[in-house]
């Protein structure tokens, strides 16, 4: 029973995260490319409840530009108070690339800024970039995983069902794809493709590459299941009344593979999200200005950043519960489908 709750919690959490990502424009106070040139590497904005005069406010507020970490060096200046406003109108954005809106969940009045996670070298809000990056990275992972599983499942099913030369061919190809370590293979394939690809095409390219190299393991698993199921007597019986191959596949054979396909999908999604992050981190994934968690983290390769600007690490920490939830789900699915007798 506790198990079910754990799984339910994980699913709910992931749905929340995906919801945040989908409506990133709403939850993020700024656009991912919006720069505040005079505030490079600003630390996270401090939220106050008590102002200089000792009054407590219900709604937290931030101070104007003067609220910087080295403000102690300056003589105390009267600072203007900017309360956080909710449901503000700000920079326009698009939901799912289709619907336009310009209402943001929260924001502060100009010229104050609210940088919950601080800013990077170009003064871009890390919190907003984190949310927009979630869009890219999560979507890349899910799409690529879907592609791999669909391709691998189809090839595996055809190979297992028809046998003969098709099976030989597919099996040899899976061996080829499984021979190299996946990251090496990924880089190798990426090397074969144009290096500097503009914006959104680089996203499509990445999803395509990830999806196309990961088909081998799902294919093998599906093939194994199809091989064993096609000899079962209920399939023979259906052949006996003249069922066509298509009917046999759809009605009898493929339903046995759904468990494996779902499990493989749940395993591949986090793996591919990480792969996208890693590739972008190396500089061969999605290119600027499309934000991805990888580009958020790649700045950490610089010594100065690592030592002086601790807040750049925050996105990395937030990744942990997300992957934890993914792994809970894939663990649960693996256990569930293993225990069902074939």
């Amino acid at each position, binding site marked *: 029973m506790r198990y079910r709750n754990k799984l339910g919690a994980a699913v709910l959490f992931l749905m929340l995260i995906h919801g945040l990502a989908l409506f990133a424009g709403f939850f993020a106070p700024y656009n991912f490319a919006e720069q505040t040139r005079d505030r490079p590497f600003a630390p996270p904005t401090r939220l106050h409840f008590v102002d200089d005069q000792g009054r407590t406010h219900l709604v937290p507020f931030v101070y104007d530009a003067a609220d910087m970490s080295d403000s102690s060096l300056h003589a105390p200046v009267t600072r203007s108070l900017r309360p956080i406003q909710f449901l503000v109108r700000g920079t326009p954005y698009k939901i799912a690339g289709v619907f336009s809106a310009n209402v943001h969940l929260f924001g502060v009045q100009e010229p104050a800024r609210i940088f919950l996670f601080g800013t990077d070298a170009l003064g871009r809000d890390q919190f907003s970039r984190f949310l927009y990056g979630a869009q890219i990275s999560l979507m890349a992972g899910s799409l690529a995983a879907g592609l791999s599983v669909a391709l691998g499942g189809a090839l595996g099913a055809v190979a297992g069902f028809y046998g003969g030369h098709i099976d030989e061919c597919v099996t040899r190809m899976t061996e080829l794809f499984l021979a190299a370590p996946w990251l090496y293979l990924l880089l190798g394939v990426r090397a074969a493709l144009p290096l500097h690809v503009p914006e959104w095409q680089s996203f499509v390219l990445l999803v395509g590459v990830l999806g196309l190299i990961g088909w081998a393991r799902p294919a093998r698993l599906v093939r194994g299941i199809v091989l064993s199921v096609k000899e079962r*007597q*209920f399939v023979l*019986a259906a052949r*006996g*009344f*003249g069922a066509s191959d298509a009917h046999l596949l759809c*009605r009898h054979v493929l339903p046995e593979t759904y468990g494996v396909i779902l499990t493989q999908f749940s395993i591949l999604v986090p793996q591919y999200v990480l792969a996208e992050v890693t590739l972008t981190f190396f500089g061969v994934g999605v290119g600027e200005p499309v934000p991805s968690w990888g580009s958020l983290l790649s700045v950490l390769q610089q010594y100065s950043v690592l030592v002086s600007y601790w807040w750049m690490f925050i996105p990395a920490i937030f990744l942990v519960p997300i992957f934890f939830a993914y792994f809970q789900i894939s663990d649960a699915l693996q256990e569930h489908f293993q225990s069902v007798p074939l």
Partner: protein
Amino acid sequence: MNDVCSSSVELVSVRGLSKRYIQRQALSRASITIQALTGINLSIQRGRTLALIGRSGAGKSTLARCLALIETPSEGEILFEGKSVLALGRDELFRVRRNVQIVFQDPTSSLNPRMTAAEIICEPLNIHRIGSTAERQEKSKKLLTQVGLPADCGCKKPFELSGGQRQRLAIARALALEPRLLILDEALSNLDLMNRESILHLLAELQSAFSLTYVHVLHDLGLASRLADEVVVMQDGRIIEHQPVDRLFNRPENSYTRELLAAMPSLESICSTRFARECR
């Protein structure tokens, strides 16, 4: 139940049937050829019950499957009502399949565990596009009653039914297309004695109700003596002897048949008839 008036109409004729299997060894390139059937000649009259007996590996199941058109022979001919089946095109073959159906030994594996009983019976009807959806539902309900299952079984899945009920369901499915020939590949072997008796009863009723022709694959000679009109003895893929049942059991011609008969536990047949008499 064994003396259905034998019309001399020949339903199925098998000539020179052979079946070879090629097994590839897993690790070496060599392959082994297994000769499952050699030179089978057989004639099955309409309305009769034929028993195929022999030891395991004699080729009984292979022959049964060839007759049911779910295995393709390597050589030879199968004629169904005078027409050669193997020479037929896809569509014709599709139509001929309606005339021959098979019931397997293990009802658990021959029924898709994810389908309900109604879906299982309707499947052949769906494939052959017989009748409208409503008509198919009607037919499946009728079949369920005919095989002795309660009508509300339709929404149950195989695992919710007992072994005997599952076999009844398999029989119902086989009857859905109104076949003329029903092949029962050791269909009674997995059942306990009580179930076996009631299914035998059912089969006899169905045979007279629908003028069915049966081919039973059996290894139990006692059972063969009870339900068959003719017995075919097989050994190593060949037919050793083919006789009407009385003649086989009283005056077997072949020494192998004699061995089989000698090994038969005669107590069982005595006990079953005694029990039937005492139950009256």
